[in-house]
């Protein structure tokens, strides 16, 4: 479970998050949508403390994320994070990318870590790419390796920050399919996305943000057919009618 209470953050005079309250129940997938600059990426990055917060409290998996006494490394190892730009390690093969953290953080024996990593990559359709370097893979393949890399730590929560925004259109589906499978398996997830169809079909709730605030949280069917706020109606009018 993820619980966000009264979280605010500013960069200098610029407020990026103000008074955010949000609860993501266990085994649910929430989509975070809204216009650019709304604070979606900043919010998801505060959930594993890639960004600090000025005020409020965030609890993930029962642990206060921004408490100074928290074992942040331990907590992060249980939170998977997938970036827009993949951020694979270019000097390591796909397999090594996936097995690095299990070996060095969880101190698994190399053979066991590699075996499990190969399994994960296989389940994402990358059996033949184990020994390929990121530079030799397409964007869609790289993002799937990144997903496998996060899953290798057996996370209880997965966070996706615009996982398909850097992809060519024909590769978006393979990544969304992988995320859909995860959602079906009962993983607790938050996804910042511009893929409205995906949000509607896969997510349990849509969180609509604008100007650093959460404007509306609703089940996808209701949000996309009858949004409660003018702001959301205006946004949907722009993104759905083209």
């Amino acid at each position: 479970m993820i619980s966000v209470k009264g979280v605010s953050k500013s960069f200098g005079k610029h407020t990026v998050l103000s008074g955010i309250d949000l609860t993501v129940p266990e085994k649910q997938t929430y989509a975070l949508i809204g216009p650019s600059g709304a604070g979606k990426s900043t919010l998801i990055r505060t959930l594993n403390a890639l960004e600090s917060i000025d005020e409020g409290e965030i609890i993930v998996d029962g642990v206060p994320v921004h408490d100074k006494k928290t074992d942040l490394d331990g907590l992060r190892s249980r939170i998977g994070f997938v970036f827009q730009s993949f951020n694979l390690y270019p000097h390591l093969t796909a397999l090594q990318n996936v097995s690095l953290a299990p070996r060095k953080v969880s101190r698994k024996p190399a053979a066991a870590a590699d075996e499990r990593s190969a399994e994960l990559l296989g389940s994402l359709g990358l059996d033949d790419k184990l020994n390929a370097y990121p530079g030799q893979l397409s964007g869609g393949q790289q993002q799937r390796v990144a997903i496998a890399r996060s899953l290798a730590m057996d996370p209880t929560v997965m966070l996706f920050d615009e996982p398909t925004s850097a992809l060519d259109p024909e590769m978006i589906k393979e990544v969304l399919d992988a995320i859909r499978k995860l959602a079906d398996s009962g993983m607790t997830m938050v996804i910042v996305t511009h893929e409205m169809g995906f949000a509607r079909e896969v997510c349990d709730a849509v969180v609509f943000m604008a100007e650093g605030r959460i404007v509306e949280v609703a089940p996808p069917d209701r949000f996309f057919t009858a949004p409660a706020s003018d702001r959301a109606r205006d946004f949907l009018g722009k993104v759905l009618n083209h």
Partner: protein
Amino acid sequence: MPHFEIVIDTELIRQTWKLFAAGLWVTLQVSFFALLIAVPLGVLLGLGRVSRNRVVRGVCMAYVEFVRGIPLIVLLLWIYFGVGNLLPLGGEKPAAIYTLGLFSAAFVAEIVRSGVQAVPRGQTEAARSSGMTYLQAMRYVVLPQALRTTLPPLAGQFIILIKDSSLVSIISVNDLTLVAKNLVASTAKSMEIYTALAVLYFVLTFVLARLVRLLEKRYAQGGHA
């Protein structure tokens, strides 16, 4: 019109080559051992420059700025005659090695710093997100990538080090340059001797530069960025 003639003075070569070879050996020794000090110290200083700890960052920055702001010849005089007066440095050759090593470390530090800073931020974020500590992220993710980009400039720094080492003759280390100076004093054949000296340095650095180019090529091919 003045008339020049190039004559190979085989007699002069026969008389002096052993001395030149001995001087070259000293130059290589001093440069090599200075490098052994400069690289580990420089890597530490370079990492210190990007440390999150302000004190560590400040100390390392002060060292780099201080050393880079002093001419090498002044540093040689200061360490050999100044510091050497208070601490036993073990003679002119060790003093020369320490000085060159400490001096080059400052430049190595800057190379390492820029190499580490050239690794995209997302790499550290990905590593930290998977639960790695700052040191693990450095060791397994950032440094291996930084090393690739720093190896060619580091090799270049070694070439600079060899040229800089000619200054150690000022504290009477019997390197290539001092050998040549002494030969000129005894034979009075300044043009011949100093030409030979220049050619020797050139050949040495040119060969090394070629090796560095090969190294760069190999790394460019092996890289998978």
